[in-house]
């Protein structure tokens, strides 16, 4: 076990996987010489060479598009999008090809590529450095989506993604890159895709979240300690979703608040609520509430605390439910 920050755990996973399998390669803007703008890829170029940790031209569609071709040549490319909002140029390749190519070959060919990117707000950054774009990705057939909230999961989910035969998109919550520190298993370590994590057990209400919203939910649970027994569920993987884990928690508590940074309309929280509205009707003791970002552009940072889900908003939602 090593005591690592989340960003160090990402870096560790990449070292282990590049060591383990020489078809794995890392590519993206500034991942090589600089070791990544967050230092997620630091040391890789020195250790594995410039061909396995490639500074690409500044072209996100080109990065993802060439990664498809590299898969065809037998590689497992781990691409980096430098920031959430700078991933949008790659959406065309993602939707038209990454999610469809395996299927288009009648299952004949695999596309074991990974897209990883720092995402989310709260970091006092200029415009376009704060988006939570998971909906665009999770709505796209043929790709899987994972979002860690702890250093250990950041390592284990990334390693699982790299070894998975399907394309996997990993969103890394940059807000907690350097605030979350915990024990991370050394060497070979996997967290299987598709299994939620019960962060803390409770009886009265379930907070469902992923990414940086998980520690926030824990803080909200603390704030509610005198009022309610709060369960916190970290989904870890949005697709495939651990529907059983979600339904089991709600069957127990009967009350649920879904927390998501992304804009509200058709965010992933809506999918969770829809699943509950279909499959947990008889368990629910109140409405399914969502605490989310608003349907507005992510604000300039002097206003971001008001935009982001907060302990106050979560507590308020829980109280509403308890009073229902």
């Amino acid at each position, binding site marked *: 076990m090593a005591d690592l920050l989340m960003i160090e755990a990402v870096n560790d996973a990449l070292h282990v996987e590049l060591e383990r399998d020489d078809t794995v390669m890392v590519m993206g803007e500034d991942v090589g010489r600089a070791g990544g703008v967050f230092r997620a890829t630091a040391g890789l170029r020195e250790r594995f060479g410039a*061909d396995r940790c490639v500074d690409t031209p500044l072209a996100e569609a080109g990065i993802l598009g060439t990664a*498809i*071709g590299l898969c*065809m040549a037998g590689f497992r490319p781990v691409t980096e999008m430098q920031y959430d909002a700078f991933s949008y140029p790659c959406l065309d390749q993602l939707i*038209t*090809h990454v999610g469809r190519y395996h299927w288009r*070959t009648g299952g004949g060919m695999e596309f074991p590529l990974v897209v990883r990117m720092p995402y989310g707000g709260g970091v006092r950054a200029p415009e376009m450095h704060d988006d939570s774009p998971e909906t665009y990705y999770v709505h796209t*057939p043929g790709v899987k989506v994972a979002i860690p909230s702890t250093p250990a999961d950041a390592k284990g989910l990334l390693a699982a993604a790299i070894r998975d*035969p399907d394309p996997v998109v990993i969103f890394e919550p940059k807000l907690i890159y350097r605030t979350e520190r915990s024990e991370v298993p050394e060497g070979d370590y996997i967290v299987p895709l598709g299994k939620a994590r019960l962060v803390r057990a409770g009886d009265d209400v379930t907070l469902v979240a992923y990414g940086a919203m998980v520690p926030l939910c824990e803080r909200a649970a603390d704030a509610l300690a005198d009022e309610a027994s709060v369960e916190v569920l970290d989904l870890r993987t949005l697709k495939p979703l651990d529907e059983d884990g979600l339904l089991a928690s709600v069957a127990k508590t009967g009350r649920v608040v879904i927390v998501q940074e992304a804009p509200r309309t058709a965010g992933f929280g809506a999918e969770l609520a829809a699943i509950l509205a279909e499959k947990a009707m008889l368990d629910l003791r109140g409405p399914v509430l969502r605490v989310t970002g608003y349907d507005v552009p992510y604000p300039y940072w002097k206003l971001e605390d008001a935009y982001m889900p907060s302990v106050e908003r979560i507590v308020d939602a829980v109280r509403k439910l308890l009073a229902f």
Partner: protein
Amino acid sequence: MARVAEGGHELRRVLDEDREVDGLGEQELLELYRSMVLLRTYDERSVIYHRQGRIGTYAIFWNHEAMQAGAVHALDDEDWIFPSYRESAIGLLRGMPAATVLHWWRGHPAGWWNPSDYNLASICVPIATQVPHAAGLAWGKKLKGERACALTFFGDGATSEGAFHEGANFAGVMQAPLILFCNNNQWAISTPVSAQTHAEALVDKAVGYGIPGVRVDGGDVLAVYEATREAVERARSGGGPTFIEAVTYRAAPHATADDPRAYIDLERVEQEKQNECLGRYERYLRRLGALGDDLDKTIKDESAELMRAGITAAEAEPDADVGLLFEHAYANPPASFQAELAELRRILGGDVG
């Protein structure tokens, strides 16, 4: 002002100059002819099949056969091809059954293939998006130290897309062994090439990527072959990518659904038809004495037979099972698919009010 690519805008030609191409004996010349006839037959039969309702909308490639056959013959089997929809039947030149291609146009999943079986990527419908794939594959081959190179086909319209630009630029930077083969048939559906670019010729785009460019007569199969072979040699010897602009004219509608009378000059089309690429090559071979009536008939009959067998096989294929909806979306699918498929089967099996 040095505003053009090397070699200028002259079209490289072989047939009209009655030149011969080094290393192409009678055998190879006839193989090329066979390929062109095969493609032509595929194309003409497909238009008929479409009219008969046996295949769906179909993108016609009549008068594009010289580019397709000329380019592919310059490759070895290990080299990869990344086609657009315009080269849908290019697999025939790699031994793919005609039925497979027909299935693709019939909307039947039996039109799927594994690219590694033919070193041929899937048909790419969204314009220009295959260019970065080809660049990536070629770069990957170079990384692996393998000999293979890649060739991607795209149209004149495709050069306006960001995907073309990013793919071409990556290929240049990585010095990937790639041939960027532009089929300039002068139209993107109804949009003339003059509305796609202000450059005098598409080959000028090579300059911005720091790669060699060459412009050939796309109706001249030997010119296409020769130019592609040079590009392949450059690629294999570490010289990086080459941009080839093959100039031709779209003498047929864009696709079976298209009516070009609204936008095209029909006289020009007639002229182009007179000078279409298969006839030009046939006349050359006859002048050379390599082709006579009998051989010509044999070659054409073989192709016709292959198509007859192809459509028969295609139509004998059983309907696709609904399980295929879910089966290949993931190599390792979500558990939920099973229940969804079971429910769908139940509903399709039942009947309604």
